[in-house]
C-alpha cells in the first residue's frame, strides 16, 4: 500500500497523498487508464481526481483509487517521456540571467551548467495553461520571485526560483526571474493535445547562444 492518505475534497473529488512523492506520476497514469474520472490533476504532493457521483458512488470511486495505487505499486517503472529543449540566453530572452548567476557568486556559464546538469522533471502544471513547474534543479542555487511581477512574460520564458524552473507556455503576467527562453513551441492552440509538456516529462536543456 503506497497511500498515506485519501481525503475527500467536497462531494465529487478525492485527493490522494502517496507516502512516496515520486509515485504521483505513475499513480496518475494508472488512474487515467480508467474512465471513472473527469479530471486527474497532479499537485506538488498529491493527485486529485474529480468524478460524477451520479455515475460512480463515492465509495466505489474510492475503491478505484485503491486499485490504481496497487497498479502503480506493481508497475514501478519510470513513466513519462523525455524531451530536449533548446534555451536561448541572449539578453532579451534572459533578462535576469546575469543577476541570478551573480547572486549565487557564479559566472553565467557555471550557473547554467549547474542547471542543465540537474535532473529536470515536469513536476506539475498549473497557474496558467501549460505553465510547467519543473523540479530537480540543483538545490544549492538560490533564487526567489521578482519583487514586482511582470505584466508580460513571453511564451517560452524559463523562470528560476530555488529548486525549480517555471516554463511559461503562453504570454502572460509572471513573477519568476527569467533566465532563458525555449525555442520549441510549447503550446499549439489548434492541436487536440495543445501542450508539449506533461506532468512526469523529463527535460534535457540545451543552451544555445
Amino acid at each position, binding site marked *: 500500500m503506497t497511500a498515506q492518505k485519501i481525503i475527500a*475534497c467536497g462531494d465529487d473529488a478525492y485527493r490522494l497523498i502517496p507516502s512516496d512523492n515520486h509515485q504521483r506520476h505513475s499513480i496518475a497514469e494508472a488512474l487515467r487508464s480508467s474512465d471513472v474520472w473527469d479530471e486527474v490533476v497532479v499537485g506538488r*504532493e498529491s493527485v486529485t481526481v474529480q468524478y460524477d457521483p451520479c455515475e460512480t458512488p463515492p465509495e466505489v470511486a474510492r475503491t478505484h483509487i485503491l486499485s490504481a495505487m496497487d497498479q502503480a505499486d506493481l508497475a514501478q517503472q519510470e513513466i513519462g517521456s523525455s524531451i530536449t529543449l533548446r534555451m536561448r540566453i541572449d539578453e532579451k530572452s534572459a533578462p535576469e540571467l546575469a543577476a541570478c548567476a551573480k547572486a549565487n557568486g557564479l559566472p553565467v556559464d557555471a550557473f547554467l551548467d549547474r542547471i542543465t546538469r540537474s535532473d529536470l522533471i515536469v513536476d506539475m502544471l498549473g497557474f496558467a495553461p501549460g505553465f510547467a513547474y519543473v523540479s530537480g534543479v540543483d538545490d544549492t542555487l538560490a533564487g526567489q520571485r521578482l519583487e514586482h511581477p511582470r505584466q508580460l512574460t513571453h511564451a517560452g520564458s524559463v523562470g528560476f526560483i530555488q529548486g525549480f524552473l517555471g516554463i511559461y507556455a503562453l504570454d502572460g503576467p509572471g513573477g519568476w526571474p527569467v533566465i532563458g527562453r525555449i525555442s520549441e513551441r510549447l503550446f499549439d492552440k489548434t492541436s487536440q493535445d495543445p501542450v508539449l509538456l506533461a506532468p512526469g516529462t523529463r527535460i534535457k536543456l540545451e543552451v544555445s547562444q
Partner: protein
Amino acid sequence: MSLEILQAGPQSTLQATSRNGMRHIGIPASGAADPLSHALGARLVGNDTSCASIEITYGPFEATFRCNARISLTGAISEASVSDQPVAFHETLTVGTGQTLKLGHPTAGLRTYVSVAGGFEGEVFASSPSTYLPAHLGGVDGRALKQGDMLAISEASAKGADEMLKTPSELRLPFTNAFALRATPGPDLPENEIEIWEQNFSATRRASRIGIELDGNFPAIESNRNLPSAGIFPGALQLPPQGRGFLLLPDCQTTGGYPHILQVNRSDRHLMGQIRPGDSVMFLKRAPAEAAVDQKEKQELLSSWMPEFRL
C-alpha cells in the same frame, strides 16, 4: 448569417460547454458560468450545449440581426425587447433581418444567455468555443465582445427547426439576491467548525468568471502559510490569508495552495454564476452521501426536458 453587436455591456463573451479532462495541463474549465441557464437556452433553439451562446454580464446589451433567426433568452431576467416590442424569456423567439434585440439590467441574478439556432461561431480550442479571457483562448479572439463585432451564426440543424418551445415552469429558476448553496466540508475546514454553516456572507465587488470574494466571519485557520499546490475545481471556497473567502468559478486556476474550506456541491454549482456583488450567500451543509442524492434528484428533474444535460 450574423449578429452585429451595438452594445456589449461590462462583459459579454461566447460560452458553451466547459473544457474537460485538461486540468492536469493547466487548462481551466471555462464554459457558461451558469451552465444550466445556458443549456435551457440551447434547448429552446434546438442546439447542442456545445454550441456557443452569448453570456451577458449584467447588461445592458444591444445587437442587430443580419439574418432571420430563432433565438432564446435565459438566465438572469431583465427587460427585453425586439424592435422595441417586449419579448419573453424562456421561449423560442423568431427575429427578422434588421431587428434589434435590447436587454436592460437584470434585477436579480447576473448573467443572461442569448442563444441562436445553430450557435454563434467561436474559435474552437480544445473541443470548445468557450472564451477563456486570461489566456485569450476560444470565443472571438479570446476576448470579450465589443461594439461593432459581427458574430457569425452557424447553420442550424434541421431537427426541430419549426418548434416553438417554452421552458417547463418547474425548470425556470427564479433568482433573488440571496443564495443558499448546498456544500460539503473542504479538506482544510477545521474540525467541529459550525459557524460557517450559520452565516450569511456578502459577495464583494471582486467578482469575475474566475471567482467571487465573500465577506463575513470566516474561521481562523491555524496555518495560513501556503499549502502545497494541489488540484482544485470550480465550487471550491478558498480562504486566502487576508481572511475573505474566494469562491471559485469556471475560469479558476487548475491548482491552488490556499486553504480549501468548503466545496459547493455539483448539484448547485450552476447557481454560482448568478451571484452578483452585494448578494448574500449561505452554505447548507451536506454529507457526501446526501449530496449524491441531491444531485440525482435535480438531474432526474432536468433529464425529462434535457436528456443529455449533466450537472
